[in-house]
């Protein structure tokens, strides 16, 4: 009878122990599962952070940090490099107002060959001028063959032609007219380098909080656009006196 009782007790203890073991096993399994779950989640986040950093540093081009009061090596400069007055224009080849200012600026440079240097930067207003970006790239592609200013002049002189025509084809024909290597020009027209050059200028304009073209700076100071050649000349003369 006593033996039987002991056996029952033993059986009870054994069952209890087995239950405990099962509970412990389940808890252990759950712990491992949770550890794996959170380990995986944290790893994905950390790897993503690394991936984002890697992707961000390798995807977009590095632009030159330009400001309106500093002329850089990559800028297109016309006139006497040692001139006391620097006239900088943020311009858009498709913008009609820029086309109006083109002969005025040209005249100014002819009248002040030693005192004024002119800097051209791109600010294509892409949202309203669909062909301006490529026009900027065309000037840069010509610039790679040392004909930036020649292309610049043609683009303004014939603005109404290419704006209303097949602009890409016309840019190529202008390149041909300027005696450029046409195949090279075609390759450069849409190359990342020319695009980045235009975009870099564009970003510097955005950085300077500009919102219209043309925008002029005289010796790094933004000016209100003069309405006539005479007004422009007065501004330049004032800058010369102040220099």
């Amino acid at each position, binding site marked *: 009878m006593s033996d039987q009782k002991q056996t029952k007790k033993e059986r009870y203890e054994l069952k209890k122990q087995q239950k405990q073991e099962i509970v412990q096993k389940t808890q252990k399994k759950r712990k491992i599962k949770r550890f794996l779950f959170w380990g995986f989640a944290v790893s994905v986040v950390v790897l993503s952070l690394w991936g984002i950093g890697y992707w*961000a540093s390798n995807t977009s081009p590095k632009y030159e940090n330009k400001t309106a009061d500093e002329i850089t090596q990559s800028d297109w400069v016309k006139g006497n490099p040692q001139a006391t007055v620097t006239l900088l224009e943020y311009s858009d080849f498709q913008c009609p107002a820029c086309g109006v200012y083109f002969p005025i600026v040209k005249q100014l440079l002819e009248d002040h060959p030693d005192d004024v240097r002119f800097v051209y930067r791109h600010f294509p207003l892409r949202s309203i001028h669909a062909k301006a970006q490529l026009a900027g790239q065309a000037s840069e592609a010509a610039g790679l063959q040392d004909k930036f200013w020649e292309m610049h002049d043609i683009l303004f002189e014939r603005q109404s032609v290419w704006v209303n025509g097949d602009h890409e084809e016309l840019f190529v024909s202008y390149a041909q007219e300027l005696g450029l290597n046409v195949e090279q020009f075609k390759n450069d027209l849409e190359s990342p380098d020319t695009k980045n050059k235009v975009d870099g200028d564009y970003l510097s304009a955005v*950085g300077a909080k500009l919102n219209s073209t043309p925008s002029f700076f005289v010796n790094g100071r933004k000016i209100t656009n003069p309405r006539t050649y005479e007004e422009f000349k007065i501004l330049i003369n004032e800058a010369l006196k102040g220099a």
Partner: protein
Amino acid sequence: MKRLRVHKNLILWLLVGFSFIGFLSAGYLTAKYYLGEIPSCSFLGGCDVVAKSKYSQVGPIPLALVGVGYFLALLFLLLAYVDTKKVLFLKLSFVLSAGGFFVALMLLWLQFFVIGAICFYCLISDFSSIIVFFFLLTKYKKIYGN
């Protein structure tokens, strides 16, 4: 019954997925900010304008970094719910996403009507916030009962 459970889990995993997408997008914008570069978007093309606008920062902190914090918090709260099934985590996610929803609406309004330029990566983050909020609304009963 089984179908219903799959559906419920699907919404939960979609919530996690959209939070993760928002996190990636905000992370990319943050990385660009600290690299001193402007994100270039060939699609829509207004990233430069938006990223350089005065609305892209809250004091000295880039808004994108706030976005990273927001989506990361949301992501871990949702994962905590998946893990523990404690309604508290869902409740916190809901409150957080409600704030994110209104901020996203405000940022969309700024892009469309004030800045006048659209940033593709910002749109991804904004719409992720909005979608997460609406998905969490479907869990409203579970969070607050009847």
